[in-house]
């Protein structure tokens, strides 16, 4: 199992390391199941959620089987044990993301809640009419709608940087749109609909020069790229465990300490207070201030196991292997007649979005599903992206490090079959 033994590497002639994909696949029990009457599962819907390796499943099972207790409360043995595991997980997440301290890591329900936290705590308190929030036209709805809502609440203006025909950010437009009125730039690190990797570090530097804060939606980057928030220079970074081979129900908000310290609570309840009387209450320090109620303890421990797993496989090895898969899929699917690739940015990660002339993406998805190939067909919660390209939906194949070149070939065969069915 990978968690105990490093992935075997053998040298290739050009010096790159050979990735032992069969070995990592063996760690994911679900990958050996069949679907639709006996077809091997070809799971290419990783941008929606990733599959879970055995160490993650075992960590959650072990917690409930042996260690379950509430945290930060009990004086008893189990509670102390659970609290220690929970706090260690926070340290682990901080190291994984390159945060300066575990106090900068807030656990949330997911990326969506992390972004809403910043919108309703920081933005709602600090924005005034005349201020602007700048987003991009390629954002997931989770990084659009919370800002639209807080703009309605505060009278601030909401502006979206357009994207080019390749699905890259229009950097000239960005230069024009980032002004002294901009209070926050909210940008996706990797687009879930297009796969575009945005130049977050450069954008953050430009935004900071104008005095704006920067929030990075890292839901799609954390599973694929080496993320270091200090290097990116962002003020907030949000991601979800379930896309990172961990459980659903937990996500992370990284926030720079000095900013978190000045933010008011968003939700209130137990665990987020310092002192409560019937007259008034005072707030705990971050991150507790933003974690009212019992957190998803087992899930946080599952997330820590997922991070261990990813680091054992190696984030650079993951990025390299996925890059090869994406290149193969882009070449083979892109060469099929009638295919139009949506999102052809020079820097991409993990996602191949396309449409087939004359065939609705849902029909392509159903034919692929009949072959055991799981993809997403739809607007991917990025309707402005669909509007930008004048299409109702795309077929999206999204990759993880446990996918194989053979599975890309299955995808290609399925797309060819869809063309035959609807010709």
């Amino acid at each position, binding site marked *: 199992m990978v968690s105990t033994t490093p992935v075997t590497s053998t040298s290739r002639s050009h010096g790159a390391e050979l990735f032992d994909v069969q070995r990592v696949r063996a760690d994911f029990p679900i990958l050996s199941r069949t679907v639709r009457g006996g077809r091997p599962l070809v799971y290419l819907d990783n941008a929606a959620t990733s599959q879970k390796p055995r160490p993650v499943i075992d960590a959650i099972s072990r917690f409930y089987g042996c260690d379950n207790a509430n945290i930060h409360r009990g004086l008893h043995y189990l509670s102390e044990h659970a609290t220690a595991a929970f706090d260690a997980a926070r340290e682990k997440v901080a190291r994984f993301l390159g945060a300066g301290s575990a106090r900068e890591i807030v656990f949330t329900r997911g990326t969506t809640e992390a972004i809403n936290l910043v919108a309703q705590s920081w933005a709602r308190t600090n924005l005034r009419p005349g201020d602007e929030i700048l987003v991009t036209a390629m954002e997931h709805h989770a990084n659009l709608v919370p800002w639209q809502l807080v703009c309605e609440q505060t009278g601030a203006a909401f502006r979206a940087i357009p994207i080019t025909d390749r699905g890259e950010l229009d950097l000239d437009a960005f230069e024009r749109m980032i002004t002294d009125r901009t209070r926050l730039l909210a940008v996706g690190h990797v687009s879930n609909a297009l796969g575009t990797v945005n130049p977050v570090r450069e954008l953050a530097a430009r935004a900071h020069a104008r005095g704006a804060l920067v929030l990075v939606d890292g839901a799609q980057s954390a599973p694929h790229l080496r993320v270091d928030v200090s290097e990116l220079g962002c003020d907030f970074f949000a991601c979800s465990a379930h896309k990172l081979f961990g459980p659903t129900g937990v996500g992370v908000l990284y926030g720079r300490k000095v900013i978190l310290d000045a933010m008011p609570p968003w939700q209130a309840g137990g665990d987020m207070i310092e002192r409560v009387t019937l007259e008034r209450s005072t707030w705990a320090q971050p991150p507790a201030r933003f974690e009212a109620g019992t957190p998803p303890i087992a899930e946080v421990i599952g997330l820590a196991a997922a991070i261990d797993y990813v680091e054992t496989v190696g984030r650079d090895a993951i990025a390299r292997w996925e890059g090869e898969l994406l290149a193969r899929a882009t070449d083979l699917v892109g060469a099929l007649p009638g295919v139009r690739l949506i999102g052809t940015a020079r820097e991409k990660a993990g996602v191949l979005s396309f449409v087939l002339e004359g065939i609705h993406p*849902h*029909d392509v998805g159903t034919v692929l599903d009949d072959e055991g190939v799981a993809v997403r067909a739809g607007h991917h919660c990025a*309707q402005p992206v669909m509007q930008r390209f004048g299409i109702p939906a795309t077929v999206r194949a999204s990759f993880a490090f446990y996918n194989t070149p053979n599975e890309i070939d299955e995808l290609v065969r399925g797309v060819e079959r869809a063309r035959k069915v609807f010709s």
Partner: protein
Amino acid sequence: MSSLAELYQNVILEHNRSPRNYRVIAEADRQAEGNNPLCGDQLTVWLKLDGDVIRDVSFQGLGCAISRASASLMTAEVKGKTRREATELFERFRGLVTGETATAPETLGKLAVFSGVSAYPTRVKCASLPWHTLKAALEDGAPTPVTTLE
């Protein structure tokens, strides 16, 4: 027949390629819009009524093969029927595509080609959206779009 072939029967594929009544009725008495926010399908249904009888019906919109063929076959089937007959046909059709009620396919005429839909729960809404939209148009020419998630 495999379940995929059962879903995409030839009649459905043919109506997807060449949908009937795919046009605007300029002097429509009623019109309604249907949306499926989950998948982005959208269509408009136009009606010309003669008392209680559907004299003409048409549609336009964006959607998958199932929703396009369903709209096309629907317009062909309900033309000339009374509101009540059309509504009853919808009920039987809904029973067929959801698989919730045993509907004898022969009572559905050409619409029986949608019998394969019930094996694909996520596609039921594709087949039923045009009918929900027709029903809204029949009821009050719905000023606000119909949204269906079923």
